Every structure is written in structure tokens, then in C-alpha cells.
């Protein structure tokens, strides 16, 4: 296990019970998607794992101390006054790394995400998909063991989204990352994950924890394979069940 959530709940200051209680363990190397209706607390869960907010009750335990964590938001969340390279090296600079070394590592990540030649571009000069790539490069620059993504591709067009899905699978494989991915797209979760955790409407609870039979591959043809629709149907049914279970 890399991390273990035990009896986690979150109640906001206004009294709204947002999440839980949930129990969830994530092993090293898994690609776990959290799927659920809007407002089911899946983003809240991700932010708690990142340490940005604390649970109202319960415990988050990391097996070998807190790992290096990368976080990708729904929006690219870039600094508009900084170039792609300056944005990508931010985690390293904040960590006190020497400028040259930080720059080299950030540059390598940008290249890996297909952004060579755009190192000096400002966010307003980049398309939505490219901005998201910078955001992912930034998350990877600090060489995280755990990558958290909060509906990162929701605002992108279908083609860009498909390309980024494939890139994400490659990055996960090549870096032997552990990924937790929040989405409300059934097909995206079925395409990307080794495991899909389906959550109910607020307060979010785990309805079903589905281990997918096939390891994810960056192969768009897979989206039309019969076993893919089987998985998607199962996730869909589970979501329906979660809505009805209130």
C-alpha cells in the first residue's frame, strides 16, 4: 500500500456533509479513477490526500512517509506572467533547487509533453490543450511518486482530451507513477484506469470498487473493443445504483 484512507469524513463549516465515511487503500503503481456525480466529494478527497484540506474525522496514512505529490487542477492554473518553462520549474524553485538544474528538469518534462519550442511562450499564447500540458509538466517536474488529477481534461475538446488520455497512460507507465484521477466521465475512467472507484451522491460514499480486467494502453482503437463497453456499462450501472441509493 502507498496510502490508506480510514473512516474519512468531511463536513464543511456550513454543516454540509460532503464526504464519507470512506475507506480506500491505494497500492504503488495503481491508476485509480474516482467517478461520481457532481458534488460527491471526489475532489475533496483528492485535496485531503494532497494535504490542502484536512478531514473532519478519520485518518490518511502513507506507508513510507508522505511521498512527493504532483497535483493537476481542473483549470491549467498557470501563472500568466511566467513562461511555460518558468511555470514548469515552479515546484523545483520553491523547493530551493538551483536555477540551472530546475530549468533543465522542467525543460525535459516540457519536451516529454510535446512542448519543445514553446518553452518561452506565455500562457495566453498557448491553446487550452497546451496549457494543460504545461500544467502536467509542472506536476511531473518534481518527480512525484503520486500524481493527483482533479478533472483535468473536462474543459477540453474531445480530440485533445483523447490525446492527453494517451499521453497520461504513457507517463504513468514510463515513470512508474501511482495516479489518482477524478472524473465524471465513465469512458475516460474505463480507458485510463487499472481500478475505478464509483462514488454516490453527497455525502460521497464508495458504491463499488471495480478492478479492471485489462491494463490501460495508449491505443484509441481500444475504445471500440467489446470488453471496453462491458467495463463502461458496469461503471455506468454502478453510478446509477449510487444515485438511487440515497
Amino acid at each position, binding site marked *: 500500500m502507498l496510502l490508506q484512507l480510514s473512516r474519512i469524513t468531511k463536513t464543511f463549516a456550513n454543516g454540509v456533509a460532503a464526504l464519507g465515511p470512506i475507506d480506500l487503500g491505494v497500492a504503488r503503481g495503481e491508476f485509480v479513477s474516482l467517478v461520481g456525480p457532481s458534488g460527491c466529494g471526489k475532489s475533496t478527497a483528492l485535496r485531503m490526500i494532497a494535504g*490542502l484540506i484536512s478531514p473532519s474525522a478519520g485518518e490518511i496514512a502513507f506507508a513510507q512517509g508522505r511521498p512527493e505529490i504532483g497535483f493537476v487542477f481542473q483549470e491549467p492554473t498557470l501563472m500568466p506572467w511566467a513562461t511555460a518553462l518558468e511555470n514548469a520549474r515552479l515546484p523545483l524553485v520553491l523547493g530551493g533547487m538551483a536555477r540551472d538544474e530546475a530549468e533543465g528538469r522542467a525543460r525535459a518534462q516540457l519536451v516529454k509533453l510535446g512542448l519543445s519550442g514553446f518553452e518561452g511562450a506565455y500562457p495566453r499564447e498557448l491553446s487550452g490543450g497546451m496549457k494543460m500540458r504545461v500544467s502536467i509538466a509542472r506536476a511531473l517536474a518534481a518527480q512525484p511518486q503520486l500524481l493527483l488529477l482533479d478533472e483535468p481534461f473536462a474543459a477540453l475538446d474531445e480530440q485533445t482530451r483523447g490525446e492527453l488520455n494517451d499521453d497520461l497512460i504513457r507517463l504513468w507507465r514510463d515513470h512508474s507513477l501511482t495516479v489518482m484521477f477524478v472524473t465524471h466521465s465513465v469512458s475516460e475512467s474505463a480507458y485510463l484506469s487499472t481500478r475505478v472507484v464509483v462514488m454516490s451522491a453527497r455525502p460521497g460514499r464508495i458504491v463499488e470498487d471495480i478492478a479492471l480486467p485489462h491494463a490501460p494502453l495508449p491505443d484509441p482503437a481500444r475504445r471500440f473493443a467489446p470488453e471496453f463497453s462491458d467495463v463502461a456499462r458496469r461503471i455506468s450501472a454502478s453510478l446509477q445504483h449510487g444515485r438511487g441509493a440515497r
Partner: protein
Amino acid sequence: MTRALQILVPLAVGALALALWEISVHAFDVSPIVLPAPSGIWAAFKQHFAQLMGALWTTLRISVAAFVLAVIGGVALAVLFSQSRMIETALYPYAVILQVTPVVAIAPIVTIWIGYERIDLVLLLLAVIVAFFPILANTTLGLRSADHNLIDLFRLYGASRWQILWKLQLPTALPYLLGAMKVSGGLALIGVVVAEFAAGSGTATGLAWTITLATRELHIATAFAALALLSLLGIAIFFALTALEWALLHRWHESAVRKEV
């Protein structure tokens, strides 16, 4: 509209207005005590050139000093506010009181405190009071406008308060500050002029005093020349600050994006 036209059209309007003014004054035989012709103002300008330039230098010097002090003080106080809600709650009402009290009303008191013999200091202080508030208010707003997700990201990577301020909040506040500087630059000049009128003594030597003196002696053309210099000074301050804004923002800020039509 091309750039050349954008400059030429207003200039043509100005030239036309000046020509009409000149012709009207001669045609209707207006007394130079009521309204001097542009040619008369130009003559007065040449005649009193040294005196006018001295007055311009005094007004310019004090305005720029007041502006710089207002920017430094306003930004410093805004940073302090952003670091502590307590300090903001304690001090902000007094900043507002200072802002809403008309400078004309406090000028005589400040003059008595500091003394007529140090009238430049009186003008400086009053102009700072006038120019200070837009900087404070806008920078405070800007420092608080940082993207919440970016703040979270900085925290995730263990950023210190200082790093969040320096690398996130101050860059976010920069467009707000530059907008406020354009307002405050004009206000600093107005502050100096109003303060000089209000202080109303012979020890002041700026353009406002030149106007007061010239009108008393019915040298209306000289008063107009001083007035024209004041306008030019105001325009120069505005353009200088607009250029500064462009230099700092044009690479990245939405306000500087030129739309292709």
C-alpha cells in the same frame, strides 16, 4: 484607425481650436485681461520663460517626489495589510478618513504645523496624502486576488509566506498597482497645485503660485502660459506611466492583447 491618424486627428482638432480662438479674439476685439489670444500667451511665455521654467521645475520636483513616496508607502502598507488582517482592520478606517478629508481643508493646518519657511515640505506632504489612497486600495485588492488554486499549489510545494508574497501575490497585484499609479500620478500633481493655492503664501514658487500672482497683477496671458505648462506636465506624467504599464504588462497581460480584426 491607423496609429498616425490616432495622433493626427486630435492634433488637427487642437490646431483648429487654437486658430478659432486667435481669430475670435481679434475679430471681437476681446480685452487681453479677459481672454488673451494664443499669440499673446506665447509672447508672455517667452517673456517670462525663466520664471515659468523655475516654477515648472518646483511643481514637477514636488509632484514626482510625492508620487514616489505615495507608491512606496501605499505598496508597503498594502503588503502589511495582506500579511495581517488585524493590522488591516486597525488601520484601514484611518486611511479612508485621510482620503475623504478634502486636502484644501487640512492645508492651512499642516502649513501652520510645518511652517511657511518649509513650504515645499507642506506641499509634498499634502500631495502624498492625496496620491496615496488609490495605490493602497488597489494594491490591497490585487494582493488578495491571487488565484486560489495557485495558492494551494504553492502550499503543496511547501512555499513560505515570503515566496507566496513575492512570486504569486505581488505579480498578481502588478496590473492593479499600475492602474492605480496612472490615477495617483495625476492626483500627485493636483495635490501639489491645490496645496499651493490653499497654503496661499509668497514662499511657494510653483506654477499654482505663478497663476495666483499673475491673475492678481492682471497678467492673464502669463497665467494662461502657466496653466498650459500644468496641462502639459499632467499629460507627460500620464504618458510616462502608460509607457511603464505597457513595458511591464505587454508580454503577458490580457489588457495588452491587440485583437486582430
